[in-house]
């Protein structure tokens, strides 16, 4: 290696002489193992040294190689034929340098671009993700919590609304912990913007910024419009429309990039039927929040969706329904003959939500009904 022109290389690459440079690069180019190794090396470099430093590093490595090459070539030529003039020598060097660069630069660039691509593609699996579930203590939300824990989530925040759900919240926390994830239960009435803000702040303080935020909160009312009081109307709006709005707002502000947000609505959004004006009507806005939020958050890689299950076999569903209505709902889905009661089983909704907040990330802005063919929109 040249002595007087030695350039401080960081790191010191095992190069010396033109032929060794070329053989090194062709090895990298032709050997998958060497290519992979150099790709990982570049990923390590890119992750640990910011862009400008890395470019400097690559350029200084090149400067070292080129200086080495040109010095060796110069000495070799002078030894062989002192009559060679400097102009011819310059051309000869230039052609050697060009050949050298094209041999070595190409595989290095390929490895570099490959490593950049791998870094920019996000990891969409559930593994290692932090999850916040509003209404995560019981029913559909409780099963989602257990399911995501089993699929490798790192931490799950289980929100619940009232003291009556505390025992179920604790049972869900225990089940999540048994599956190997961190879990914490937080109680909050989410019908004000401030409460939703606080939920996210408390969740972040407990387990860090969420990657996935799922809102399963809802309230049913089944009555002719003529009989709905102002109090009932306001309560339905607060729980179904306002909570969902500010949950989306706060999730958008607090989620990690490439995160996922999903809100649970209702298959009644595809129905044409009396008595559900206050329920379908107050869940309907979520579809429009979802559309706007997906456009507003897309630049950060965040997917935003809504899922409308059919009527589910849970304590959420039965209180509002008379016996005749229940009998109708149990036969109304095309696939009613194949679920446990004819209603939607929560086990048939959870995998779809899990898909949306992981591999299904390319679905965004959509409201999708998962209901065995109960209604369609």
């Amino acid at each position, binding site marked *: 290696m040249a002595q007087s022109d030695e350039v401080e290389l960081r790191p010191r690459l095992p190069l010396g002489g033109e032929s060794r440079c070329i053989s090194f690069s062709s090895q990298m180019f032709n050997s998958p193992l060497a290519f992979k190794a150099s790709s990982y090396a570049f990923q390590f470099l890119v992750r640990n040294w910011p862009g400008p430093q890395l470019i400097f590093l690559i350029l200084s490595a090149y400067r070292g190689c080129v200086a080495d090459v040109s010095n060796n070539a110069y000495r070799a030529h002078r030894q062989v034929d002192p009559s060679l003039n400097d102009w011819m020598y310059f051309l000869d060097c230039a052609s050697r340098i060009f050949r050298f660069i094209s041999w070595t630069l190409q595989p290095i660039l390929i490895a570099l671009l490959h490593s950049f691509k791998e870094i920019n593609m996000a990891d969409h699996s559930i593994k290692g993700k932090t999850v916040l579930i509003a209404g995560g203590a019981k029913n559909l939300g409780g099963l989602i919590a257990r399911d995501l824990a089993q699929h490798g989530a790192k931490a799950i925040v289980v929100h619940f609304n009232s003291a009556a759900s505390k025992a179920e919240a604790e049972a869900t926390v225990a089940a999540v912990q048994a599956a190997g994830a961190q879990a914490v239960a937080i109680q909050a009435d989410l019908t*004000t*913007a*401030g409460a939703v803000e606080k939920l996210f702040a408390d969740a972040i303080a407990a387990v860090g910024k969420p990657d996935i935020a799922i809102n399963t909160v809802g309230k049913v009312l089944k009555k*002719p*419009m*003529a009989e*709905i009081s*102002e109090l009932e*109307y*306001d309560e339905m*709006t607060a729980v179904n*429309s*306002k909570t969902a*709005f*500010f949950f*989306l*707002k706060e999730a*958008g*502000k607090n989620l990690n990039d490439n995160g996922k947000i999903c809100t649970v609505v209702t298959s009644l*959004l595809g129905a*044409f*039927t*009396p*008595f*559900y*004006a*206050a329920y*379908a*009507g*107050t869940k*309907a*806005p*979520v*579809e*429009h*929040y979802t*559309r*706007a*939020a997906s*456009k*507003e958050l897309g630049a950060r890689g965040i997917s935003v969706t809504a899922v409308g299950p059919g009527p589910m076999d849970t304590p959420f569903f039965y209180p509002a329904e008379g016996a005749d209505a229940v009998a109708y709902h149990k036969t109304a889905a095309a696939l009613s003959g194949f679920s446990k009661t004819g209603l939607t089983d929560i086990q048939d909704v959870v995998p779809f939500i899990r898909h949306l907040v992981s591999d299904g990330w390319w679905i965004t*802005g959509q409201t999708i009904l998962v209901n065995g063919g109960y209604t369609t*929109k």
Partner: protein
Amino acid sequence: MVAITHQEVLKTFPSATSTGARRFVGKTAIVVGASANVGKALAQLLAQEGAEVVVHYNSASKQAQADDVAAVVRGHGQEALTFQADLTKPAQATALFDAAISKFGKVDILINTAGKIIRKPLAEFEEAEFDELFNVNAKAAFFLLKEASKKIADEGRILSFVTTMVAAFAPTYAGYAGSKAPLEHFSKSLAKELGGRRVTVNCLAPGPLDTSFFYPAESNENIGWLKSMSIDGGLGNIADITGLALFLVSPEARWMTGTTSYINGGIVSPIN
């Protein structure tokens, strides 16, 4: 590409009303938001076709304009009642209907043109803005429909204005489209509940119109975008939508209920 220029649309063209139709003789109509814009146009056209009209306005600052509309109604030989009500308070929806029935004996037609636009990203919405938007666009509409469900005459017609943006997929409309979407579901539910009395309940989803209602929430950039999507590169006019609105509350439309009709110069079109 463009068959009809924006300038041609501005010229008067024959409408059912202008060619002498008298579809609403003997009918009483409540027009909510009748002091200006589309509501004002509809109040006048209904009177021209024989209806008695209740001219509703929401704040005292609009009383003079409401009185002008009432004068036009009377000019057509029909009776008019002006009535101020802040419909975000359900009791005032009751008062509006009771006043109408007290004067005219019945209400056959309810047209609700009221609305409010706040257009910004979710991240910038304050709670007070959410409350205001939902109070005006959803809650007031709900309690009007509730009153109508109890007091509208058999074979009545209810028409609510939503927005064409409920069929759009765009940023900044979470609040506006979100707060108008409930009205579609209120209408559909009511359509089923009142069908037995042969009352039809529908929504109209106009696109952006060249009126004072539209501009306050808009930026030049967004106006340009909306215009670029229309069939003639412009906004719609009130006269473009009054024909459809009147049809939907006419006797001829008895078989149309639970629908949302989009009339927007082609800026968006939902599949279903």
